[in-house]
């Protein structure tokens, strides 16, 4: 008896489901960042707003990377429904705290897919995920650095204005 499921698709249905979940997660990230860009813009934090617009674009790009991978491997990519995006924040700092939370949860879910791939010996998807593992290093670094600015600059006086200016300059370039 031929292995028909394998002939049609390189990835197992479990991995396919996890990857579709990740598609949704990246779409959610993109929408969250877009809401943050709007809040920052409305409150006068133009550099941060620009920073979140860029992040939203990147998350959309991540979403498409997963989406196309599922299709290329013979799976069924599902366009996700994204609802319940928080539009208002209590403070400038809260925006960055939630940005870091979101990145940590993305790192965890990618690790979870990786663990499942190891169990199934799906080396091909593991190799595909390597790019994302490296990307999360950068994403968490940037989110953590933004929060650090609140500590080193302080929010008093023109502090928030300074923090905003520096958020626009956050970069991660590690050769490792």
């Amino acid at each position, binding site marked *: *008896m*031929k292995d*028909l499921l*394998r002939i*049609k698709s390189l990835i197992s249905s479990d991995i396919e489901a996890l990857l579709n979940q990740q598609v949704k997660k990246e779409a959610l990230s993109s929408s969250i960042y877009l809401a943050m860009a709007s809040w920052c813009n409305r409150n006068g934090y133009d550099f941060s707003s620009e920073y979140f617009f860029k992040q939203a674009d990147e998350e959309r790009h991540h979403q498409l990377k997963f989406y196309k991978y599922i299709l290329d491997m013979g799976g069924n990519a599902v366009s996700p429904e994204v609802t319940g995006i928080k539009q208002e924040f209590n403070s400038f700092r809260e925006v960055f705290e939630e940005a870091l939370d979101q990145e940590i949860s993305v790192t965890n879910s990618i690790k979870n897919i990786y663990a499942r791939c190891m169990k199934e010996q799906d080396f091909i998807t593991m190799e595909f995920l390597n790019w994302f593992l490296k990307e999360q290093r950068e994403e968490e670094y940037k989110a953590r650095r933004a929060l650090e600015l609140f500590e080193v600059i302080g929010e008093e006086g023109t502090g928030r204005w300074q923090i905003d200016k520096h958020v626009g300059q956050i970069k991660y370039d590690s050769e490792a």
Partner: protein
Amino acid sequence: MIATTELTLWTDVFSTKTGAVYQCDAERCWYVDFAGKVARFDHRNFLKLRKAVYAIDIEEKLLNTTTDPDVEIIFICACDHCYVLSLAQIINLKELLEGTFVMLELNHIIHDRLFSNSL
């Protein structure tokens, strides 16, 4: 394990008292003998059937005391077949599909092993 019919070579995948699933390698499809008919499913539609059946909340239906009939219509997009099933039949179909996918998974493992051993 190979059953020959008049027409093509079908392999038994899994069967229960109420139904059976056969695989046809030549046509790369499955035949589901259930609820009085034999229906042909290609790869995509077979996975859609599984998804539709697994999505039915059997427990909720059992506890549901409203007067509407316990009938579920399983309609699969871009597929010629449609099932109108009673609650008992849904349970039977689910059992049939679960067993089928375990056997397909087993077949996959065997193929995997055979291939890696021949290297």
